[in-house]
């Protein structure tokens, strides 16, 4: 099971990963053409003003110095001010954006898991019946349909035509993560949750189905039946837990894709979350935001991976975390 040594080792590795991501991310951001000061002041701004702003932002320093400064400031939790939203702290901006994205990401994941695991399981158990065909259809369509298209479809049908949901969820960020706001605001974010969750749900249905099919043909399933166990026990106790082993890995991996999807969905739904902030910051060359997003996101990825590895060892006793 999980021991302290293992966690420490993983944390050490995490530091290395962060360092690598920071180096690559910094290089790509700063080497790409474009001048943030010019972008902030506009193309017609005079040269002196641009140079003054560059100095204020430390952009006139040599790159290695800037590389060092950003890293040290990040570690000291002194993330500075945004280039684009002058006078606003990076911390403040992230604090207002992250909760929204996390909110619908969590619900998309819940939606995907709650839909896909039973569907995949039943489809495999009733292979070649209508349930199975339905699951294959759902996963095929879900995987094929692009997020932005599904998003627009949902807006057109649910928001415009049937007037069931509002396109842009207008909810104070604070109440999203409170009780009972966490549950009641699902309706506000319904369109986004479905749009983002569908691809994950589709992939996961397929994964659950195929891994359950493999498990159901195992000898220990025959053995469980030979013991006279009820079908429900055979499937839910003996098959499901084994079938979940590859599914857990796949969920972890897809969770990371979910954040990629956030960029698209937020653009389509006009939601000011992390995805939209990312795109806007890159376009406006808002270096402090880009670096802060990059590093916080990496921390998230590392953390999610750790959780997955631990849950993996909980499901499968053969996995020893070392």
């Amino acid at each position: 099971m999980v021991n302290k040594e293992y966690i420490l080792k993983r944390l050490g590795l995490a530091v290395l990963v962060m360092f690598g991501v920071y180096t690559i991310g910094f290089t790509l951001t700063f080497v790409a053409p474009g001048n943030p000061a010019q972008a902030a002041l506009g193309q017609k701004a005079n040269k002196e003003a641009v140079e003054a702003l560059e100095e204020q932002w430390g952009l006139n320093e040599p790159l290695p110095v800037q590389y060092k400064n950003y890293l040290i400031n990040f570690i000291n939790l002194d993330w500075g001010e945004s280039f684009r939203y002058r006078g606003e702290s990076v911390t403040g901006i992230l604090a207002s954006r992250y909760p929204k994205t996390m909110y619908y990401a969590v619900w998309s994941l819940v939606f995907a898991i709650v839909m896909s695991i039973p569907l995949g399981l039943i489809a495999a158990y009733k292979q070649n019946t209508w349930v199975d065909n339905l699951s294959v259809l759902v996963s095929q369509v879900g995987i094929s349909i692009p997020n932005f298209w599904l998003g627009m479809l949902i807006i057109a049908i649910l928001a415009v035509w049937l007037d069931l949901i509002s396109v842009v969820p207008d909810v104070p960020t604070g109440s999203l993560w409170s009780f009972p706001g966490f549950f009641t605001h699902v309706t506000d974010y319904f369109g986004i949750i479905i749009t983002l969750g569908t691809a994950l749900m589709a992939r996961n249905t397929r994964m659950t189905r195929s891994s359950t099919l493999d498990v159901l043909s195992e000898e220990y399933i025959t053995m469980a039946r030979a013991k006279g166990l009820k079908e429900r026990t055979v499937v839910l106790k003996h098959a499901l837990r084994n079938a979940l082993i590859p599914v857990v890995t796949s969920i972890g991996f897809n969770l990371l894709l979910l954040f990629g999807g956030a960029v698209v969905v937020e653009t389509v739904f006009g939601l000011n979350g992390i995805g939209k902030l990312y795109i806007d910051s890159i376009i406006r060359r808002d270096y402090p935001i880009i670096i802060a997003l990059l590093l916080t996101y990496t921390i998230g990825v590392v953390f999610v991976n750790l959780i997955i590895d631990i849950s993996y060892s909980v499901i499968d006793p053969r996995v020893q975390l070392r």
Partner: protein
Amino acid sequence: MKAVEEKKTSTERDKKETILSVRNLVTKFYTEEGVVEALEGINFEVKKGEIYSLVGETGCGKSVTVKSILGLLERTGKVESGEAIFYRSSTLDRPVDLLSIKESRIRKIRGKDITYIPQDPSSSLNPVYTIKNQLLEIIRPHSDISKKEALEKAKELLEEVDLAPPENYLSKYPFQLSGGQKQRIIIAMALATEPSLIIADEPSTALDVTVEAKVLDLMEELIASHDTSLILITHNLGVVAQISDRIGIMYAGRVIEVASTENIFYKPYHPYTFGLLKSVPSIKKREKELDFVKGLVPDLYDPPSGCRFHPRCEYQTDVCKEKKPPYEEVEPGHNVACYYSKEVKKDRREEDL
């Protein structure tokens, strides 16, 4: 002295009551490639307290036979006709036909009155649950005992299969045990509910030769001490000679000869049995090239007409190609399905088996 005693008990067993009687069992598999006529009318019976062996080559339908009886066939398999009357159901006071009762009924017999020992112990235990979990799961649902009593029972069982002290094994996961240990645990599971019949599907093939011998000895001992019957499926004639009371020889989906162990080994009536025995290596025949049954096991997608053995049989005539030979008693308790059993009898006198 011991040998004489054993002989005596085996003749006593002949008179004992029948606990399972399988008649004309036909099973087919409907696959995408076509229909496999896996069983074409299986007949045999098992008596109380005996070890009955079903012997045959790979693919002759041994496993399909027992899976049909227990209702454990995979989706593509279907029992077409026949009956399997079980006389010792503890939940019903009358004989039941295992092939026609409801799934919920057979579930009460499976794991309680009839237990199953699968071929490969390593893949038959669920890798993610402890031995304790998997043992209690068969003990508890089939009896009204408390968890504590069930745990005591589990410990007793482990001691009985020579896994002592039991505490060392209960908390283990299957991957922490050896193949022999896992097979012992499976045997303990099979005995857990005091069944009247145990079906073992090649219980020792996946084990090393030394472990195999130990496991077989153990099984023989436990069958006797628990007074249950055993159907032993195997392709190994050595194993069969060692422990069984009666033997059924299977070929391509049919039991072609049934007799006591001595009769099968010394007085075979079927050309296939005769051929099989000639192919067993012997010290006496050391200089000679090893005999074997010519030809291959037939393709069951398109089985031979009449007697399925005829293409490989040296006694075959036209009648063998046209009509399936009837299943007849040639001596008391000795049944054969062959038109030329008398000729085989004559020939085997000349050969020294």
